[in-house]
């Protein structure tokens, strides 16, 4: 029988949750790296027993961990993330130039077919790649050296590259998202990049439809239709049907179009999920009701999914990497909260139950579907 493994990064360590294919009872193991922030834990698509974890601390910097046995044991691998050449400067919050400085790894994106190949999105925003399982890291400097780079400015969480979308049909194509620069895409494996923000509108910008400067929170795609991208922006839920060349708003009837996380159903490329959050100053669900919203039309029309979720006095947040799906039938949907719950739905979102409670604030959740 198939099983599911959830890889959970939190403010105080990593946890591994496992269940059989019924996804009713979850075994919780951890914390791994207790006391450290774990921004992201991601498993190799080519070898699910290989897992990477970004372990970070304001005191002791960045550590990269790797497991080759499904998260039972871990080995620290390379943590040297050096920008190529003179790193130059981006804009600071006050509009003055600020030298690029590595702070942490926000997101790890393993290759679709090579167990030794993994990408890392880091703060200050840059893209790194390892071809030896994480032992050594090389920057793809063409991204940071894009002519718009000196105009990139951090969002409240820092100038972070938090999203990496690989194109399953063409390894040379990749989309990344940076807060607060926006989306950039490459068609040549990362040598050159172009902003992909046409159609985004951000009222906080002096020029709301600027080429860069948008606070994109998360971008996802369905593997069967990789040219269709879905985005949760700071405000607005967006959709692109041409791999980021243009975007249309699909917020529709959501109670709030602010949020961080967005997910796509494993088998229905037009079924997407978001968790509306009240506003950028009130990082909790509207009316204190934790609701996942599902659209079966690729956005625009949304339904609230509430069964099993707290519908009163709930003031948690769901962060950008904290929602995921498995590939079982029916599709499992998962998300973690800053209140330390991991909620699981084994029926595509119709009903929910906690897979874990009282964890540290959840930063990321990834699902591995195991044979």
């Amino acid at each position, binding site marked *: 029988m198939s099983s599911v493994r959830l890889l959970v990064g939190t403010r105080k360590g990593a946890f591994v949750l496992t269940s059989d294919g019924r996804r009713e009872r979850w075994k919780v193991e951890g914390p791994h790296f*207790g*006391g*450290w922030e774990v921004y992201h834990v991601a498993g190799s698509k080519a070898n699910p027993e290989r897992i990477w974890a970004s372990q970070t*601390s*304001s*005191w*002791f*910097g*960045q*550590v990269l961990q790797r497991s080759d046995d499904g998260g039972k044991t871990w080995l*620290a691998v390379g*943590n*040297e*993330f*050096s*920008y190529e050449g003179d790193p130059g400067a981006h804009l600071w919050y006050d509009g003055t130039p600020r030298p690029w*400085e*590595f702070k942490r790894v926000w997101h790890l994106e393993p290759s679709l077919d090579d167990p030794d190949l993994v990408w890392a999105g880091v703060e200050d925003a840059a893209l790194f790649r390892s071809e030896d399982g994480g032992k050594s890291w090389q920057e793809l400097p063409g991204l940071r050296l894009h002519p718009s780079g000196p105009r990139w400015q951090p969002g409240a969480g820092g100038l972070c590259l938090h999203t990496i979308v690989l194109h399953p049909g063409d390894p040379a194509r990749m989309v990344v998202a940076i807060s607060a620069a926006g989306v950039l895409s490459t068609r040549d494996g990362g040598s050159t990049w172009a902003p992909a923000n046409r159609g985004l509108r951000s009222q906080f910008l002096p020029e709301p439809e600027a080429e860069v400067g948008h606070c994109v929170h998360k971008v996802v795609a369905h593997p069967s239709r990789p040219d269709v991208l879905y985005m949760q922006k700071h405000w607005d839920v967006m959709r692109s049907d041409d791999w980021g060349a243009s975007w249309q708003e699909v917020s529709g009837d959501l109670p709030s179009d602010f949020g961080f996380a967005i997910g796509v159903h494993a088998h229905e490329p037009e079924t997407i999920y978001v968790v509306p959050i009240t506003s950028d100053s009130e990082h909790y669900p509207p009316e204190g009701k934790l609701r996942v919203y599902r659209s079966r039309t690729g956005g625009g029309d949304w339904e609230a999914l509430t069964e099993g979720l707290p519908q009163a006095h709930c003031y948690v947040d769901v962060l950008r990497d904290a929602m995921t799906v498995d590939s079982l039938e029916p599709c499992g949907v998962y998300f973690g909260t800053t209140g330390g719950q991991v909620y699981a739905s084994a029926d595509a979102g119709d009903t929910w139950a906690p897979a874990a409670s009282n964890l540290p604030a959840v930063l990321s959740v990834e699902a591995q579907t195991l044979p």
Partner: protein
Amino acid sequence: MNPASTAAASGSSAGAGAVGGASAVAARVRVRLPAQLQKLAQLPAEIVVQVDGAVTQRAVIDALEREHPVLGGTVRDRATGKRRPFVRFFAGESDLSNASPDEPLPAAVCESREPFVVLGAIAGG
């Protein structure tokens, strides 16, 4: 017995001549680690590293990172070589955090009578 205690009890191979200048004899320097780094590197609270030449902050941390690569980048930034802001260095009662990394460490550290202490700033309220 803690290996560091053994080293301390047996004395240092570095004489006073090592202080402030290069020595032909390697110094065995005691280093005390904060709990987080002990756990990360699976080490006891105090270890001994071998320092060739002048015993300075830089030389001790070079040795620490060489002998325990998992600690690379954890007490000083890899790119700039600067001490991480929430990490402090002490020897005895002296706060050496803002001393030059190339300044000789006190004789008590060079001679293994005192450890070189790496300390994480306290957090909480």
